[in-house]
């Protein structure tokens, strides 16, 4: 059963969706997303970039959104259709974001709430139990930076990573694998550290 379909390994010409969430288009997160996108494209994959801040993504789950959610239909508001199409046709999801208060930035959390709705990320079975629907996703990649050192994050827990690598992972297939590429103590890193980390991201992306 292994060989050509090693768990988590991407097929040739895979569709990879890169979700970038950072307010600064000239910051390190944007540079990380460019490094990831470049390496993936060079490896022959097709990349869709969802830049949430640049696209003015509205992260607030409205009352109307919630009504759609509770009706358990796969309908999404019109502004989200592109996001849903990307996610449902992707072989891998790559998240690039800064970890704030040990969690996801609100804009990325809101993206999960509004895009990963019933019929897209999960379905309900006859007994009203949640069942995964993102079985097309073979790999989740988490690329994040932290102001705090690694030890501090170990104490408070990497709660943003948990949302993606556990809660979201549970709506994917059994063989979906996760990869985390993390840079701690960001505020005291010099330029050489940052460049080295970008090369590290590129290497990891080439080996998906």
């Amino acid at each position, binding site marked *: 059963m292994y060989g050509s379909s090693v768990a988590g390994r991407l097929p040739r010409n895979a569709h990879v969706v890169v979700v970038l969430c950072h307010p600064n288009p000239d910051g390190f997160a944007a540079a990380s997303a460019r490094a990831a996108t470049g390496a993936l494209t060079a490896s022959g994959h097709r990349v869709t970039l969802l830049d949430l801040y640049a696209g003015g993504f509205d992260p607030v789950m409205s009352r109307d959104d919630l009504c759609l959610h509770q009706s358990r239909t796969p309908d999404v508001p019109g502004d989200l259709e592109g996001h849903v199409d990307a996610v449902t046709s992707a072989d891998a999801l790559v998240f690039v974001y800064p970890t704030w208060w040990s969690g996801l930035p609100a804009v990325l959390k809101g993206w999960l709430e509004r895009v990963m709705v019933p019929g897209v990320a999960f379905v309900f079975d006859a007994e009203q139990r949640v069942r995964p629907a993102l079985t097309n996703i073979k790999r989740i990649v988490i690329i994040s930076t932290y*102001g705090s050192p690694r030890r501090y994050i170990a104490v408070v827990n990497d709660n943003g990573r948990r949302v993606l690598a556990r809660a979201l992972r549970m709506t994917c297939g059994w063989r979906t694998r996760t990869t985390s590429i993390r840079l701690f103590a960001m505020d005291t890193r010099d330029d050489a550290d940052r460049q080295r980390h970008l090369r590290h991201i590129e290497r990891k992306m080439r080996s998906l």
Partner: protein
Amino acid sequence: MRVLVVYSHPNPGSFVAALDRAVVGSLTTAGHDVHHIDLHSERFDPAFSLFERLHHTGPPGEKTAEFPFLAAHVDALRWCDHLVLVYPTWWSGLPAMLKGWVDRTFMQGVAWDLPEGANRIRPLLTNIGGVTVVTTHGSSKFVNMLEGESGKRTVSRSMRLMFRRRAGFDWVALYGADTCSAAKRDAFMRRVQRRMERLH
């Protein structure tokens, strides 16, 4: 006691909204001084902005001058002795709206301070002696355990470390809310009321 209640749910007809009204009612009956924030009704913008990113380590006045609506939230945080959060748990964590409230109001000079050259922040919200979370989970306790309870840890660890040393943490949570009976909901409602009445 001065209690700040922060409520985040888009539907005023929801069970979480009813819990919020019960929290405020019980606290008021018990004689506490309550300040209530309803993030959805005031249309709070949860998106941490480029301005805030670029002035991340600057004084809070810069941020409240650029975004005047943040000033009242900062004042409320500095005023209270106890914080109560009322929200639905989505994707095992805080709703984006509430997470954005934390991202934007727990700013340098209000919640924390970063001494020169240090990696680790120093807490400033030492007026807050405890935090209570009232939340609902659609899924079971077991599923939430597998998911790693990121919302619970965000409050009990990351946020609480900005409060007074050994600040209390009270977790009042309903699991399986999507499928539970009306009787179970009523029992949870009474549990929330009792907790609030006994707050001291």
